[in-house]
């Protein structure tokens, strides 16, 4: 028996190799002969170009263009506001499938006015891109890093820490109110989750079709849900830590991922002049995110933890905003944004599950009782109301 076993294994691999070889052969023949060998008739080329990043400098427009179509595209001319314009394309005019190129145009754009750039391909197709309000892209220097860092701290870290200041108050609450506040956290998370999914879908729309936006989001979201689900259980088993504390860390991580996405969006929007960060907007973000801090300490309830660990929780939830703002400002790309946001959405969904399980542990029917239901509703409402302030 022991002698025949390896032989049997080898045979089974060989059987699997045959279809694999056939697939490879078919792919080779198709690529070699082209679909024209099979389907007579000429197909007009389907060209697709997507403008990703745009940088405006004084007298200069720089675009990063991605070819998301099935065949290569040659960019022959560039139109700016319906005029042929001198330009340079790096690395070259021919953009291969799924490759990008940088188009640099010396153009005296006018501050505060719209600019429309159109790329003309060799087949005469035009790929327009509108810059709604032309404004200089801040250069990446020390000032930029400080500005965007402060931006993240104002709208991310400080509000979360302030919200966590409710910790001593939460500790004094009776049990039913604790359940209410834990459910409040779940409500906050559900709101953030929905917001994140919407933003991820919006980002996906700006992606070249070949990148399969929706599929990418589903993959990233489900993946992050599964990873965090497994990680949290492994973590609790290994450390034997208190469920409440572990869930509090998970909540902080979920909120942190969401804030990374938020930072990305705000950083990118600020960079391209899409939003003006007035005091009102910053206050709006602050109030909105204070709720997130309250959510973290609500999970801890009457569990006392060291101030150091409390600060760590705040950092996990709030600091990613800074990171996001930098990334968004430095090299925003819709692909990156969609992936980040989808990861956040998956993580938040998982944390909601853990929060509800933690509530369930508080007693029979706790997760479906009036305090829990009311908590979720109030959490959603508070997030909605403070969210109105952010509508830029």
């Amino acid at each position, binding site marked *: 028996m022991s002698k025949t076993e390896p032989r049997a294994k080898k045979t089974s691999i060989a059987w699997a190799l045959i279809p694999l070889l056939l697939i490879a052969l078919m792919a080779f023949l198709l690529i070699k002969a082209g679909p024209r060998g099979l389907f007579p008739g000429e197909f007009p080329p389907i060209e697709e170009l997507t403008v990703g990043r745009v940088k405006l400098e004084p007298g200069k427009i720089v675009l990063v263009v991605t070819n998301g179509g099935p065949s290569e595209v040659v960019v022959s*001319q560039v139109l700016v506001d319906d005029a042929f314009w001198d330009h340079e394309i790096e690395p070259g005019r021919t953009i291969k499938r799924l490759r990008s190129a940088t188009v640099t145009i010396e153009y005296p754009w006018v501050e505060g006015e719209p600019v429309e750039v159109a790329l003309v391909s060799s087949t*005469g197709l035009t790929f327009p891109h509108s810059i709604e309000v032309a404004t200089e892209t801040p250069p990446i220097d020390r000032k930029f890093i400080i500005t965007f860092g402060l931006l993240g701290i104002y709208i991310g870290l400080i509000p979360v820490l302030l919200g966590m200041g409710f910790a001593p108050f939460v500790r004094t609450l009776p049990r039913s109110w604790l359940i209410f506040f834990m459910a409040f956290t779940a409500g906050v998370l559900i709101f953030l989750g929905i917001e994140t999914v919407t933003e991820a879908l919006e980002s996906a729309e700006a992606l070249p079709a070949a990148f399969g936006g929706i599929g990418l989001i589903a993959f990233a979201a489900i993946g992050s849900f599964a990873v965090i689900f497994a990680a949290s259980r492994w973590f609790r088993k290994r450390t034997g830590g208190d469920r409440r504390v572990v869930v509090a860390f998970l909540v902080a991580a979920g909120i942190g991922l969401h804030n990374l996405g938020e930072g990305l969006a705000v950083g990118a929007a600020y960079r391209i002049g899409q939003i003006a960060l007035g005091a009102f907007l910053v206050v709006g973000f602050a109030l909105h995110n204070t709720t997130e801090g309250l959510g973290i300490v609500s999970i801890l309830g009457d569990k006392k933890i060291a101030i150091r660990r409390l600060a760590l929780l705040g950092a996990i939830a709030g600091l990613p905003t800074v990171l996001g703002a930098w990334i968004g400002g430095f090299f925003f790309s819709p692909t990156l944004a969609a992936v980040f946001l989808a990861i956040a959405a998956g993580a938040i969904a998982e944390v909601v599950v853990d929060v509800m399980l933690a509530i369930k542990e508080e007693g029979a029917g706790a997760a479906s009782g009036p305090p829990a239901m009311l908590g979720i509703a109030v959490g959603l409402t508070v997030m909605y109301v403070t969210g109105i302030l952010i509508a830029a």
Partner: protein
Amino acid sequence: MKMPRLFVRRPKDEGGLALTRRQLLAAGSLGAAGLLTRGGRKASAFQHEQHLRDHFGNTTVGEVDTKIFNPMTYLEEFDRGKESIQPDGTVLREFQITSVDVEIEVAPGVFFPAWAYNGKVPGPTLRANAGDRVRVNFTNAGRHPHTIHFHGFHSAGMDGVFELVKHNETFTYEFIADPFGLHLYHCHTPPLKRHIHKGLYGTFIVDPPGGRPPAREMVMMMNGFDTNLDGENEIYAVNSVAHYYMRHPIHVKQNELIRVYLVNITEFDLINSFHSHATFFNEFRTGTKLEPDNFTDTIILGQGERSILEFSYREPGSYMFHAHVSEFAELGWAGMFEVT
């Protein structure tokens, strides 16, 4: 107070300075061009290129392949046909025209699937004297049915409207060249808009008895191309190639009489226009009279309208000519005369 403000406007910014430097460069090349034009063409062409890149920005990039269609050759190429004397003593001119499906380059690297008379857009400039018998042997090698519709007097059967010439069929148009003037020919197969904007058109000149005074003659067909087929032109030009005469100025002599046969065959846009810099021209509307109708530097032509323009330049230098519809000029309908 004004002077210091100018200097301290952007103290640390290189941008302001660079712009000034570039402007200086452009101004320098302008001045140098004036001095060097007598020196030779090479220097002037180089200056011209500098001029475009530094000062203009508004230009197509690269060069078209002129082996297939050369706008410079087209400009002064007249097809007078095969000439023979008929029994009654009058002149017969026989022309051969074949329509084909062909891809043409309308801006460097931008290709347009055209339908073309003799493989070129515009088709050949046909020229006859008033009273000549004109015979056009037309063969359609294109996949779609086509015709040739001439402007001028002729019988109904020679109008090129109802007798669609199908793939690989032939038709012979015959008529007396009348009246003298600047006319055109084009396909009249429905859908008309498409058959014209695809490129089936050309200029038809009928010279008056005794001809016109000697001049440097050139044909300019104002046309446009809807390259992405959205019902609007992406490219405008005279003689098909966007900004061609901008990058390759037409060389003429100081005080030389220039005669431009200007035809508007633009589709989609109701009007087109012509504006000459630093000179005025006599306009002969449709060229059907020998006295000018107008003395101006800007005219408007509707679709199918044409005019003969006569002018000259008093001083050497580079002079633009372009559509005064600025949008068309920026989308390719602009050129230059280099006067020496």
